[in-house]
């Protein structure tokens, strides 16, 4: 078996990214779409840290720390919005939320 190298991590993060993208494109429930977005963010983080290791610099790791922090803030605000959508429309199905009325 070949040694674990940069390519292994790139392939893994590409697969994770495409699965997250599929989730965002396909699912009807808003919370599951958010889960897909989290998968995409994790794939990007994995990529950043893999490059940081094989390049020797620290900027990849710092970038990915800030990505983790901002993902947390974004998830909190997004879920607050989803709760409001549920209170207004009584559903979180993204196909049904199609009017701009109160």
């Amino acid at each position, binding site marked *: *078996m070949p040694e*674990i190298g940069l*390519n*292994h*991590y*790139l*392939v*893994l993060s*590409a*697969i*994770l*990214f*495409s*699965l997250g*993208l*599929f989730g965002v*494109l*396909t*699912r*009807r429930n*808003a*919370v*599951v779409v*958010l*889960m*897909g977005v*989290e*998968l995409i963010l*994790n794939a990007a*983080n*994995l990529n950043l*840290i893999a*490059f*940081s290791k094989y*390049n020797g*610099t*620290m900027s990849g*790791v*710092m970038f*990915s*720390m*800030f990505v*983790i*922090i*901002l*993902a*947390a*803030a*974004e*998830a*909190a605000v997004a*879920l*607050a*919005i*989803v*709760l*409001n959508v549920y*209170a*207004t429309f009584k559903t979180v199905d993204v*196909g049904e939320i199609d009017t701009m009325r109160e």
Partner: protein
Amino acid sequence: MENFDFGAFAYQAIFYLFALIIVVSAAMVVFSRSIIYSAFSLLFTLFGVGAMYVYLSADFVAVTQIVVYVGGILILLLFGVMLTNKITQERLLTDVFNIVPSLVIMLAILGAILYTFLYRAKWHAGQERTTTVVEPIGYEVMTNYVLPFEIVSILLLVALMGAAYIARSEKKFGLEKRSN
């Protein structure tokens, strides 16, 4: 079997095991019909990615991932699932739409990314970093990245206040109030 390097074999075997955990649980997140199973499979995906960070010598980021993603975002998502569905029904099923076009797009993008990364890009390889990352992160945060650090703390405060305000419950929740 006399030259069998157990250590290197274990290293690679566990790497492939974690990669398998990540891919299988991410597939369950995306393809499962029950929302709760999606949420709990996300736990395994996040753990697997954390393990990958340890392989990449970024131990502090791995532990941060567990604390923030598993202990924060995943619990938020679980509460989101529980609060936006009627919990009295047993299976929360949801169906998917546009499977075939999305599948085509997903495979096309996956193929394009892999082709570009593996065959076309000429990655500049430097000295591999093998030391722990705790002290360099502390050093960088206090010297080169002070401004993003401070701005992120203000941003977290704003996000906290905004989310708490948007999600306050006294104005329009017509449902029975959940405990707590």
